[in-house]
């Protein structure tokens, strides 16, 4: 097989090889980024329709008409699935990880460029198959992003559980294959292609986060792939992995002896690590950005690395906390609960270290920094509802209520999105050679921060009051009808916040073509991507390989010529 070095001796010629079927990790990273950007707008639009339907169930929406309860459930399923897979997994890892992991470790490309191209295009196919579910008879499935059987396994369980559900599972299976290929590539690249002097403990925390995320992906997506194949077999080949003897719509089905809980175990064995797959890269970016714009070394670099490793490690042993009310043994709930609390510890260490990084710094409030600070705030808010849900006895009241919806949206939804925003504003100059507009960036930040809190904080109040999730309307249960004013407030907040995202998109595209030209190192950063030209040449460093002499976050170095020492500065520079 051709190595990265020989493949990249010459830049490819011709539009298709250069921009469509490119082997260049930078182009592939940008492709992933735009795929995720498209997906996030689809997912956000679906959530807008949901929010409108919940509070004005009979409203006629232009071009769409009135939303029916089953349509609401399709929107809900597709919103969750698209956001989790094609946004939160795709943008931070496939997008920014692909673009910057090789450059940050001083490599000319990923270890397997062809595999890299293949994993992007496989993801693309998965996305197309997912969208196709909207357009088949019966529409998209109703079973939620968790797809619990028997509902997801039985064609007659509701509209959308026919071909739509098959497409949904197939898309996820294809996505799993793409993610497995990506994970292998990331792990190999990190282990084998680091430049001279780039020891593991000199890797930027972003690289650590992508590396650990890739390991999680490798272990988790294989399980989901198998679970999905079994589900397809239950649906189409008459097997009974997940379905016992049941009666749906008055018809006795041919299944016998399957276990609905088996799916839940397999799904959450993937699903919980998936939460960390979404948030770990955000943690990496937040660390990188907080250190850079505080002009201070990261507080407790090693503690940050160990915290991420232990989050990844414990992340595989807590899946049962999604199942306290499922009928699983109450004894196992005890173990899952203690292990879940253990994850709170490294998470708290990280928060402490982020605050410690800013403490006694000289904070510069560029847009990426605002988003990193917002990330910390949201991570705290979303994280602290965790210890409620981790206690089985409180889960009796809170499970499957809006409290859970608020919790995971704050921490794995919005915090992760803030990580993506921080990364976008931070690396945009390197990727596109121009600066984004700061004023509009700040306006976008403040509306988004206040808006997301206005949407998701009230969900905790609703959950405590017993508002169940996945209800298309609140007209049937008297105590829930009383909560409608708060839901209405959240819908208004959502409309404003969603509108504000157009500021971001306009800023993004306008700056791409009209923004002021960026220098090679506009933020005065230390890591290797800022040592090369903007944008980087095809082989990243223009024919030479950098030699690393310093740790990644040498800011505010006493006695240095500048207030920072770059990773490839000569070893004699005053730093350790």
């Amino acid at each position, binding site marked *: 097989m051709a190595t990265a070095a020989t493949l990249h001796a010459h830049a490819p010629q011709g539009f298709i090889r250069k921009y469509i079927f490119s082997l260049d990790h930078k182009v592939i990273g940008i492709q992933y980024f735009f795929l995720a950007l498209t997906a996030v707008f689809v997912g956000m639009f679906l959530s807008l329709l949901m929010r409108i339907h919940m509070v004005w169930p009979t409203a006629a929406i232009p071009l769409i008409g009135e939303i029916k309860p089953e349509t609401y459930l399709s929107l809900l399923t597709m919103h969750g699935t698209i956001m989790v897979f094609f946004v939160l997994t795709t943008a931070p890892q496939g997008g920014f990880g692909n673009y910057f992991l090789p450059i940050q470790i001083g490599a000319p490309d990923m270890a397997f460029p062809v595999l890299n191209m293949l994993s992007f295009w496989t993801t693309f196919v998965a996305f197309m198959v997912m969208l196709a579910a909207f357009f088949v008879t019966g529409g998209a499935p109703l079973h939620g992003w968790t797809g619990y059987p*028997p509902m997801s396994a039985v064609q007659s369980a509701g509209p959308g559980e026919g071909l739509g559900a098959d497409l949904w599972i197939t898309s996820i299976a294809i996505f799993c294959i793409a993610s497995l290929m990506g994970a292998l590539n990331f792990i190999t690249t990190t282990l084998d292609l680091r430049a001279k002097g780039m020891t593991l403990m000199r890797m930027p925390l972003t690289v650590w986060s992508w590396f650990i995320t890739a390991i999680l992906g490798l272990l988790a997506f294989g399980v989901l792939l198998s679970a999905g194949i079994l589900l397809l077999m239950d649906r189409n080949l008459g097997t009974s992995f997940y379905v016992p003897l049941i009666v749906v719509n*008055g018809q006795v089905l041919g299944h016998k002896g399957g276990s609905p809980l088996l799916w839940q175990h397999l799904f959450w064995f993937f699903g919980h690590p998936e939460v960390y797959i979404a948030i770990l890269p955000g943690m990496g970016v937040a660390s990188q950005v907080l250190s850079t714009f505080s002009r201070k070394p990261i507080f407790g670099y090693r503690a940050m690395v160990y915290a991420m490793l232990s989050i990844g490690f414990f992340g595989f042993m807590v899946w049962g906390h999604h199942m306290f009310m499922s009928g699983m043994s109450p004894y196992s709930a005890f173990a899952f609960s203690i292990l879940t609390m253990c994850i709170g510890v490294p998470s708290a260490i990280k928060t402490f270290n982020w605050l410690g990084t800013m403490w006694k710094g000289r904070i510069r409030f560029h847009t990426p920094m605002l988003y990193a600070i917002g990330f910390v705030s949201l991570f705290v808010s979303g994280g602290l509802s965790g210890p409620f849900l981790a206690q089985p006895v*409180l889960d009796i009241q809170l499970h499957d209520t809006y409290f859970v919806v608020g919790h995971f949206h704050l921490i794995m939804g919005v915090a992760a999105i803030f990580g993506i925003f921080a990364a976008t504003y931070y690396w945009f100059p390197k990727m596109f050679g121009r600066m984004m507009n700061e004023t509009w960036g700040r306006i976008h930040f403040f509306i988004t921060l206040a808006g997301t809190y206005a949407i998701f904080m009230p969900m905790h109040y609703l959950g405590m009051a017993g508002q169940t999730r996945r209800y298309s309307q609140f007209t049937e249960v008297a105590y829930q009808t009383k909560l409608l004013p708060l839901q209405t407030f959240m819908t208004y907040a959502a409309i404003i916040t969603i509108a504000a995202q157009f500021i971001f998109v306009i800023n993004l595209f306008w700056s791409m073509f009209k923004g002021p030209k960026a220098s090679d190192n506009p933020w005065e950063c230390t890591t290797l991507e800022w040592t090369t030209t903007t944008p980087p040449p095809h082989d990243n460093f223009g024919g030479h390989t950098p030699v690393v002499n310093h740790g990644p976050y040498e800011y505010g170095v006493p006695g240095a010529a500048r207030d920072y020492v770059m990773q490839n500065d000569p070893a004699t520079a005053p730093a350790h």
Partner: protein
Amino acid sequence: MGLALMVVIWLITLISTYFFAAKTWWLPVGAAASAEFIDKQFALTFVIMGVVFLAAQLGLGYIVWRYREQSSSPPSSYSHGNTNLEVVWTLLTAVLFIGLNLMGSRVWASQRFDAAAPGAVQVEVTGMQFAWYFRYPGPDGKYAPTSVKLMDPSAGGEAAVGLNTSDPDAKDDVVTGTMYLPVDREVDVSLRSVDVIHSFFVPSLRFKQDAVPGLNIHMHFRPTAIGEYEIACAELCGLGHYKMHGMVHVVSQEDFDKWLAAREAEKQ
């Protein structure tokens, strides 16, 4: 910018905390024996997490304002961290989180590790798209067998749960669409589903348990206040999930006996 950010973070924090602390929206008043423990554990968790929330958010706001870059700022401190602080922080969090968890686990164990007390009221709860049915075994204390083949959800009542009416035990089995329970007696609930997963959630009784097809799950609780409490299905079960609603009537033992006798009489 530092000031603006501090103000916004502080405002968000204080407004959020206000609505928690003022209990504008809070757990519904508990009407079961476990409510006291659960609510106490909830309140304790809430206080601890609330303190951490306030400290972290207000601290974050203060730090971004205090250490904003100005021409007069001193150079940033060249520090790579402090191992002692890391250790203290780690231990504190571990003790706090795990201690809190162990306290809650005691309540969980008393709820779920033991079977219902002898002499508990027996009720079988069956969930189906999109209704709840309740079966009482009657004076003989025995549920007659049910069969999937006999299930006819559209017929409702006994046929919906597939009761084998030819069985002698079926004579006194009562199937209803509303749940009646005597106050201050333990209830032994046996939960079933005929089609997809549902979840039997009664917020006021602090009770939730999934009903899973293929499983018969026994749970117990003790209502402590007479009243009417709403059941809301808490597991996504299809297009009618939002209207899979029911009522629990907690009445005096006397009224309960009368009600059950009337249902038995109707059946004859």
